[in-house]
């Protein structure tokens, strides 16, 4: 082995799954002789520097067998490293990542989740859900029972940059937040950052959730699907041209509408009306390996929820005339995303990714009725249409350049995003034969804004022990005639105490130029995205975090972090404001103020072996100060929860059986309850009138503590043609009534009483899946 010291040189390439050709994001890569290390980026690309003629590279990825590869001076670059899934090896040998990546990396407050691990966890109504799994991590709260909201380190649900193949997702929920839009069968990789944001990220205050769709199998055709209690799904993938072009297409639809239709008919009789609800989504992707240095990806997602009541066209004779009626009321919302990405390895030092993205989220309510009257001489038609729509649409371009220069790993880039907002528009149409027609829109008009960003960051190995990541993110936001520039410094440092111990610290200044008008009580699809304006300024935050990371026996990872985050110009609905009131401009309905969140997070994870899982604990405080709310006094945020514990355990007994368990506990959410009732009064009356209610502060009361146990068992049945997976899950196994809200009712004796209303008692579900 030629271990002669030589001039520095770069070894670069891609890491992929041997079975599918799928790129493996976040693979740990290390030079054995020099212990230099890195990990693959979002495209499975890595670049590492060495000084020896022959270099031994070590690759490790969760759920895959480790690999050591010798790279000789004449080895052709870029490398194409393939790793094999470890659970496919005979003899039920479970291996996994044996590395100190978490210890080595400057990045803190980051969590990577393996989709297979998520699928092993107990499911809610038969659906494995990425967001629900992420909510079990320390520092991340899920809001209300069953919802897919994300409240990260004191931030609001609007402060998360959720990216699906690089395109932002503005509403990640189906069915009023009970399910996320992410179909696990179509997802390859999930990472969330809660803090210590490198300069390449911007646009949101509290987190970056980066989700990569599957790229499609480059080797052979594969099909995967399932039939569940709520939805069924099917995923197809395969090569269009082997090892050159692949595709992936995945669809999912619920069938609540079909199942409930007979019940509605039973209740209402066959009155010509039908009503129902469904959600559906589709992911699609094409992946083209143009040549060894160029790759193109085309990604698409569309999904919607729809609730409808409609009458079948109905005709009857009346007074010698034929009269026909039909009507439809619908309430629907959905996302559409598209992205084109181009990866280019420019030379041994430089990797470039350029992408174009489009995203749209819309919400609409429509009531329409049509009728016609036909007699011998004329046809009279009448149309009534009453609609409300809101939407946000983004067009963006982005380019990132990665330059590996030995001790320095530079990243520079730019992005431009054009936002189009329609915060709320009513449309009324009225048309009648022979009469004047009305076609008018009122409410908020479309408004546009533009964001441009530049960034530069450097991951610098200062010494063998000290590594820092520093950078600047520059953002210029333009709305109408106003410009809001910002320079956002970022810094993170890691100091190695030993091979398995490191201490870390980070600082991140963030800016967010869009706001979400969200009702404090529920996470609903009609939450409105609106631009920052002169009156409602862009939000900003500063977050400092410090902690340490430790890996034990190559099996366990342990992190402890403490953080303090302050936020400015965050918005809340004013007291008494209601989003149902569209007559009032949104700017008049909100008040801006400050927020802060601080706390401690503890996470112990086991990612490899037959038993995997984690224990997470968060001790945190979340507060808000809004001059026009709570008489300007600081108050606890609705989702302030002092203690938050999660315990996740997956056990793979053998190739046939998996078991999963989740137990969560958290302090109850805060809510506002009246503490006194007394008669109201007006200057013109001298007697008691309707009651008014006194409160001793915003969010003055705590819900009962939340806790829940979920269990699952999965049987894998191997067939000649593939595999059948039967998953039986029990959500809320001991049927705890966790409070969703409280109501006051009257008992048989006429006494008022307080009722705790929970959403889900024990909920068993069955899901049958297959893989070909």
């Amino acid at each position, binding site marked *: 082995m030629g271990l002669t010291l030589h001039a520095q040189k770069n070894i670069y390439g891609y890491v992929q799954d041997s079975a599918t050709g799928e790129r493996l994001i976040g693979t740990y890569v290390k030079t054995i002789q020099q212990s230099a290390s890195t990990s693959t980026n979002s495209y499975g690309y890595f670049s590492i520097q060495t000084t020896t003629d022959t270099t031994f590279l070590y690759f490790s990825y969760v759920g895959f067998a480790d690999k050591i590869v010798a790279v000789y001076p004449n080895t052709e670059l870029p490398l194409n490293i393939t790793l094999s899934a470890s659970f496919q090896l005979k003899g039920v040998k479970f291996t996994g990542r044996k590395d100190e990546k978490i210890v080595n990396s400057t990045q803190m407050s980051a969590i990577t989740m393996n989709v297979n691990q998520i699928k092993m966890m107990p499911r809610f109504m038969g659906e494995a859900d990425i967001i629900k799994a992420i909510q079990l991590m320390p520092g991340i709260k899920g809001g209300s029972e069953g919802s897919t909201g994300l409240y990260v380190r004191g931030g609001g649900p609007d402060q998360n940059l959720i990216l699906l193949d690089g395109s932002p997702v503005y509403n990640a929920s189906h069915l009023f937040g009970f399910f996320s839009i992410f179909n696990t069968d179509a997802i390859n990789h999930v990472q969330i950052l809660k803090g210590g944001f490198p300069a390449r990220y911007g646009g949101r205050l509290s987190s970056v959730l980066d989700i990569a769709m599957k790229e499609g199998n480059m080797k052979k055709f594969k099909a995967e699907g399932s039939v569940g209690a709520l939805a069924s799904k099917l995923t197809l993938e395969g090569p269009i041209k082997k090892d050159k072009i692949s595709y992936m297409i995945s669809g999912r639809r619920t069938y609540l509408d079909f199942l409930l239709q007979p019940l509605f008919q039973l209740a209402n009789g066959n009155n010509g009306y039908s009503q129902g609800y469904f959600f559906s989504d589709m992911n699609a992707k094409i992946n083209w390996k143009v040549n060894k240095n160029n790759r193109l990806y085309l990604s698409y997602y569309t999904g919607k929820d729809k609730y409808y009541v409609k009458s079948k066209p109905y005709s009857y004779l009346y007074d010698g005339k034929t009269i026909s009626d039909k009507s439809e009321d619908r309430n629907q919302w959905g996302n559409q995303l598209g992205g084109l990405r181009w990866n280019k390895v420019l030379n041994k030092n430089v990797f470039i990714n350029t992408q174009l993205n489009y995203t749209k989220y819309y919400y609409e309510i429509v009531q329409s009725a049509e009728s016609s009257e036909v007699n011998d001489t004329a046809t009279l038609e009448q149309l009534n249409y009453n609609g409300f729509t809101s939407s946000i649409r983004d067009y963006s371009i982005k380019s990132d350049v990665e330059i590996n220069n030995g001790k320095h790993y530079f990243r520079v880039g730019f992005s431009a995003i054009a936002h189009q907002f329609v915060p709320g528009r009513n449309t009324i149409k009225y048309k009648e034969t022979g009469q004047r027609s009305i076609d008018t829109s009122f409410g908020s008009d479309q408004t546009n804004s533009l964001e441009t960003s530049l960034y530069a960051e450097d991951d610098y190995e200062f010494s063998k022990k000290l590594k820092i990541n520093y950078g600047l993110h520059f953002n210029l936001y333009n709305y109408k005639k106003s410009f809001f520039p910002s320079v956002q410094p970022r810094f993170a440092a890691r100091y190695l105490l030993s091979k398995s111990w490191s201490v870390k610290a980070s600082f991140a200044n963030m800016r967010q130029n869009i706001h979400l008008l969200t009702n404090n009580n529920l996470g*609903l699809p009609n939450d409105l995205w609106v631009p920052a304006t002169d009156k409602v300024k862009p939000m900003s935050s500063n977050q400092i975090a410090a902690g340490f990371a430790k890996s034990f026996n190559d099996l366990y990872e342990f992190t402890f972090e403490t953080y303090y985050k302050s936020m400015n110009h965050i918005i809340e609905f004013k007291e*008494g404001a209601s989003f149902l009131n569209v007559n009032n401009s949104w700017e008049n309905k909100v008040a801006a103020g400050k927020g802060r969140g601080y706390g401690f997070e503890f996470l112990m994870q086991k990612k490899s072996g037959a038993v995997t899982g984690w224990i997470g604990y968060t001790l945190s405080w979340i507060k808000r100060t809004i001059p026009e709310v709570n008489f300007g006094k600081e108050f606890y945020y609705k989702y302030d929860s002092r203690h938050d514990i999660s315990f996740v355990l997956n056990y793979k007994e053998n190739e046939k059986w998996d078991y999963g368990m989740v137990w969560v506990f958290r302090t109850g959410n805060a809510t506002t309850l009246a503490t006194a009732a007394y008669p109201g*009064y007006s200057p013109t009356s001298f007697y008691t009138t309707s009651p008014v209610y*006194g409160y001793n502060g915003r969010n003055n009361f705590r819900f009962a503590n939340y806790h829940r146990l979920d269990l699952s068992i999965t049987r894998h049945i191997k067939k000649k043609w593939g595999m059948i997976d039967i998953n039986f899950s029990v959500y809320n196994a001991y049927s705890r009534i966790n409070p969703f809200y409280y109501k006051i009712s009257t008992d048989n004796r006429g006494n008022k009483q307080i009722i705790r209303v*929970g959403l*889900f008692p024990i909920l068993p579900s069955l899901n049958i899946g297959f893989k070909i």
Partner: protein
Amino acid sequence: MKNLFILTALLFTFIFTSCEKTEKVDNFPRHEGKLVANCFFTSDSTFKFVLSKSLSPIDNAPFKQLNSTKAFIKIYEDNIFFDSLVCKGGLYPTYTSTTNRTASALHNYRFECNYPGLGKVSGEDYLPDSSSVLKAKGYYTILNSYYDNDSVINGNYFTNLNIELSNNNPYLMVFIQKNSYYQGSSYPTGYQEIYEDITDLNSANETEYIASRLYISNSAGVKNINLKWTTDYGIVYKKRTTADYNIVVYSCSKAAFDYLKRQSLQWENQDDPFSQPTPMSNNIVNGYGIFGGVNVTNYLISF
């Protein structure tokens, strides 16, 4: 429109709601009844108080106006004794003046009340100067007009009212009452509040339109306030009938303004499950209620 949304939300809540549990009332904030003292004072009439006792929000009992003759209320003007009030019985007992003295604008007033069993409460406020209507011009416009079979113009009409107020006080509440006549008769319907938006033409003013009342907290320091009221949408059939309008302007102290505004919000939102909670403002020490100065101006116009 909003009902469809609420129905949708309720449907799903119903589908998924299958578990309820009665909570112990002890788990909720306890309430100890306090004296509620309510009084708006003006320069037009003497001080009048309505006293009652607060209840827990989940209490079954109705509110009762208190009428103890052993209670006393004393009023001070600029810290000098001004008046004492005694209980006047009846169905709705009030505590009324013994001197017939009325408050004067731009003076501070304080009250003290000692009620048997409920202790002593007090409050303080000032009486702002009244705000006058400088100009008011009314007219109506017809939209979508057409001629009927008798060649008479018909159509939808909007009533327009431009109002200019003097601004002696930063906290105003404005609403409009209409006294129209039954079609083809000379019998008035009586003054009734109009439920359509009034717009403040100066966007720098902080305004909120709640339950047919416009609340203006004028932080911009504008001398005069111009309001536009394009409302009273209706259908002209043959001929629009003339109506009388009463422009009512409350010139309020800050305490009175906050109380009235928050009270309007609570009442308006009582059936809206999606509205934000609105705590009542309270300037009664050791009790609840309002002791607030309000000067009322009425301005009549017919067109």
